[in-house]
């Protein structure tokens, strides 16, 4: 068994901690909890008085709610979170009155309050489950349902709908509403990615607050009054920023739907896998929803050190390539013309073991300095580390390919590689990244470099043109989708999308985060770390542990920045490494 001690190199969030906040003791349904007097505002970070709903959460009591969202400014409008409460009774001497049994006398408030917006005070008792509270919840729920279309059978939210959920707890089996329902617009195209059903909207304003206060785009609002209130986008403007799909996640009902996901799959059939977005260096935590090895959606997963509860639309919708028809699914071998025996021909169905054996032989035989490696900052830490070790062994010149585009202020990073930091820390990338690529191209041109290993990139797109590739004695390519490099490779190794394997990325701030396998790889495709590991074992004639945990833990010992980390301690939300 591996016993590892946590070194100081990697610890959970080592930001300077503010002085310990003053605590207030309150009782939630009879259970005492101590909560900080203030809690940071989710958007501005300014201290706000801790609310009852936060105190209840600290006591593991969930107060039913619709408009409240822990990451948004409070609205206080749905009234689902009404609770009763009491505060210590104060005597004429301005001191708390003590009961005969020594307990503090509590004077119960005459009116209920909303737990989401009412601050706690010392000695407060919160009652979340009294008959009166239950009646109020029933009342609110009934009001929400009377004008609701109840089209659950065709609603995408069915199965993850708060209206359904609380109806089970507080709903009546029969409606006493005998009037005509209010009708509102249906199938409203709010923007390129969002469709709105106004009749399902319960007017909680979560989407408005998110869009205004988090995404910084005051695009949504209500028009009309009373029960005819209607959510809409700003007149004449499409609801179109890079964060629109988050509103679908936080909409407690099926009012906002994703055009991409709409009507494609019942949510209860989806398998949920913890993973990461690979579309930029932020590394938003996600849940992959898949069924029978097909991916249906990405949703953000809460990680306050990275993405809060959000992700960008660009990253969220960037999953379709995984299911593309032209995925590379077989190991291929192509003998270089004029150099092999069966020129130009493809040997019949090469196997992984045969191919890896041949590659190992060739690499071992190669003269020092004749090999170069172009890695990808889309590869995992483990893969990059294995490649770096291979490179060291072979004396190879290495680099990886930068990928820069416009970023924004919220999450999207200009660095569109998910693991540039990993590429740097493992030593595979030059500094700055990409600065070795011209040297590799030059080496091939001069004939000094005879073998090129390319992982997950198209070398022809980074200055190593096709005619240079044709000069090589040996071109080994590992990739997921075909490109000009894979077509020229002597050995083609089909790899896996992140959703098909396990591994870790290090995000732009140095957070080492792991992702798990959601779907099976296609055809012969195998996780890159697996065959890299095998290759390394072959080349070094040294044994190793062929498991992702083993590879990771070994890497943690060998890469200083990762020192002290283990696969197990990464947990679901990762650990910040010192970078």
């Amino acid at each position, binding site marked *: 068994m591996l016993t590892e001690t946590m070194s100081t190199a990697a610890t959970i969030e080592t930001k300077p901690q503010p002085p310990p906040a003053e605590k207030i003791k309150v009782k939630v349904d009879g259970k005492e909890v101590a909560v900080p007097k203030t809690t940071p505002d989710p958007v501005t970070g300014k201290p706000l008085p801790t609310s009852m709903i936060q105190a209840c959460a600290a006591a593991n009591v969930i107060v039913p709610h619709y408009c409240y969202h822990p990451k948004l400014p409070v609205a*206080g409008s749905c009234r689902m979170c009404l609770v009763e409460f009491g505060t210590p009774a104060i005597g004429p001497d301005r001191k708390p009155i003590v009961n005969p049994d020594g307990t503090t006398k509590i004077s119960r408030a005459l*009116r209920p309050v909303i737990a989401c917006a*009412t*601050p706690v005070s010392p000695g407060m008792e919160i009652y979340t489950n009294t008959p009166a509270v239950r009646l109020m919840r029933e009342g609110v729920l009934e*009001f929400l349902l009377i004008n609701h279309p109840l089209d659950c059978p065709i609603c995408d939210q069915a199965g993850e709908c708060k209206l359904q959920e609380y109806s089970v707890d507080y709903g009546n089996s029969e409606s006493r509403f005998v009037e005509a329902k209010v009708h509102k617009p249906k199938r409203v195209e709010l923007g390129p990615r969002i469709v709105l059903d106004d009749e399902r909207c*319960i*007017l909680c304003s979560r989407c408005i607050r998110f869009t205004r206060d988090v995404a910084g785009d005051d695009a949504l609002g209500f028009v009309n*009054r*009373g029960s005819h209130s209607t959510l809409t986008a700003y007149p004449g403007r499409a609801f179109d920023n890079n964060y629109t799909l988050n509103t679908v996640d936080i909409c407690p009902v099926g009012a906002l739907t994703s055009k991409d996901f709409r009507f494609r799959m019942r949510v209860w059939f989806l398998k949920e896998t913890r993973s990461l977005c690979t579309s930029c260096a932020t590394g938003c935590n996600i849940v992959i929803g898949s069924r029978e090895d097909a991916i249906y959606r990405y949703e953000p997963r809460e990680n306050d050190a990275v993405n809060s509860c959000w992700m960008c639309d660009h990253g969220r919708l960037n999953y379709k390539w995984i299911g593309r028809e032209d995925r590379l699914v077989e190991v291929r071998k192509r003998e270089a013309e004029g150099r092999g025996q069966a020129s130009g021909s493809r040997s019949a169905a090469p196997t992984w073991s045969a191919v890896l054996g041949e590659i190992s032989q060739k690499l071992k035989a190669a003269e020092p300095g004749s090999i170069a490696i172009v890695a990808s900052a889309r590869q995992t830490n483990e893969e990059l580390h294995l490649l770096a070790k291979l490179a060291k062994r072979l004396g190879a010149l290495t680099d990886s390919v930068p990928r820069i585009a416009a970023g924004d202020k919220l999450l999207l990073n200009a660095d569109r590689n998910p693991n540039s930091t990993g590429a740097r820390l493992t030593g595979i990338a030059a500094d700055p990244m990409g600065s070795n690529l011209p040297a590799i191209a030059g080496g091939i041109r001069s004939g000094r470099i005879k073998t090129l290993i390319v992982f997950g990139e198209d070398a022809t797109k980074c200055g190593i043109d096709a005619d240079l590739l044709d000069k090589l004695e040996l071109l080994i390519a590992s990739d997921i989708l075909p490109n000009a490099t894979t077509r020229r490779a002597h050995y083609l190794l089909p790899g896996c999308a992140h959703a098909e394997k396990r591994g870790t990325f290090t995000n732009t701030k140095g957070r080492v985060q792991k992702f798990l396998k959601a779907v099976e790889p296609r055809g012969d495709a195998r996780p890159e770390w697996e065959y890299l590991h095998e290759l390394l074992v072959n080349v070094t004639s040294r044994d190793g542990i062929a498991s992702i945990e083993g590879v990771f833990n070994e890497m943690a010992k060998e890469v200083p920045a990762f020192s002290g980390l283990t696969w197990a301690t990464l947990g679901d939300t990762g650990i910040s490494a010192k970078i």
Partner: protein
Amino acid sequence: MPQEHRQILKYVDQPGYTPDIECYLRHSGYEALKKAITLPPKTQADGKTTTGPEQIRQEVMISGLRGRGGAGFPCGLKWSFVDRKSGKPIHLICNADESEPGTFKDKQIIYKDPHQMLEGMIIACYANDAHLAYIYIRGEFVEGAKILARALREARAKNFLGRNILGSGYDLEIHIHRGAGAYICGEETGLIESLEGRRAYPRIKPPYFPAVLGLYLCPTIVNNVETLCAVKHITAMGGAEYAKLGTPNNTGTRIVSISGHVKRPGYYEIEVGKVTIGELIHDPCFGGGLRDGRKLKAIIPGGSSAKIFKAGEKFKLKGNSLLGREAEKEVELLDLPYDFDSIIEAGSMSGSGALIVMDDSTDMVEALSNIAEFYAHESCGQCTPCREGSLWMAKALHRLTHGGGRSTDADYLLRIADNIPGGRTICAFGEACAWPVQSFVGKFKDEFIAKGAADEERRMKPAASPQC
């Protein structure tokens, strides 16, 4: 003999009294302001000195003035809540949104004596160290807004407003903002939102108490038109003197808008509590009695959102317990003094001072349906119980008044209404829409049941079917 006591309406409607500043000045206008602004610091018994503004605030506290806008909250106490240490500017807003059905008192002041309101407002601003104030006027008062704009120009020209008012070094600017026809803009935090340029969604309290986090999140005072006029008179006559008007804890004068089935509907200024509801209805100098041959059926004492009283109702009121004992006495509706506390004790409120009188020609179901329709139309729609409940009740009442009633509708209505008020909503509109239903149906239940039952019977009768 009950009488009007015209203090605020003293000159209003007098022949030759015009809303311009010259006329106002001829009637000793702006004298109270001159007095206020030149008040020297005063050394108290305890050796502390109070500034002029502090003295005015004290006088208002002593006067016992209660807000005339609806809630009847003590004005001096409201002012004392203002956060004066925040370092942020303090704003004052004059609530001229007068929208509660049955109320038409502020309109008289605005249209006929605008400078009185301005004078009260300027004094209130001075007393509270506000340098920026707004008049939020309901959109329908198109002419009123023009009159006020003119009055502001006149006051500015005479340096009652603007920079260095009357050489005192005190600056004040007042702006007019017109509403766009929404009742909810009268609710003070809805008003503030509207003034800031958003939908008039009332704010949650906590944290948005206007006295701390009001307009532009600065400490803010919202006072009704009539309340601010009273401030002028308190300044002129002194708080203690003002408190002699009316009855204890219900001091001063207030304007009652009387509407409905009386011979002389109109506005009447009375000393609070010195006139009974019966006198307001029947006395020749007030309502002048019901229409001939009619009997009183019910009254709504404080605007359509107040709970209805049924003719002949008797209430047990706690007498003023000067002896330290609570003496209970039984009072008939018509003998109920028109004040704040008695009407609350009787289970309703004097609200905006609007007395709506209904005689026996009134169909209570129709009347309630009318009121419910108003509230369903005016709910801002922000919080669930009010938004959904108000329309639900209106729809049920529409059905009940259009032949689709059921004998169970009375209870049906009560059960809807019971889920709205009592802290379940963001603002008091929840009460405003539920109280009429609870009280109409509660007190005239047989009428509601009978109407529904009649409809049921009609539906049960087999229609003369062509097949038979």
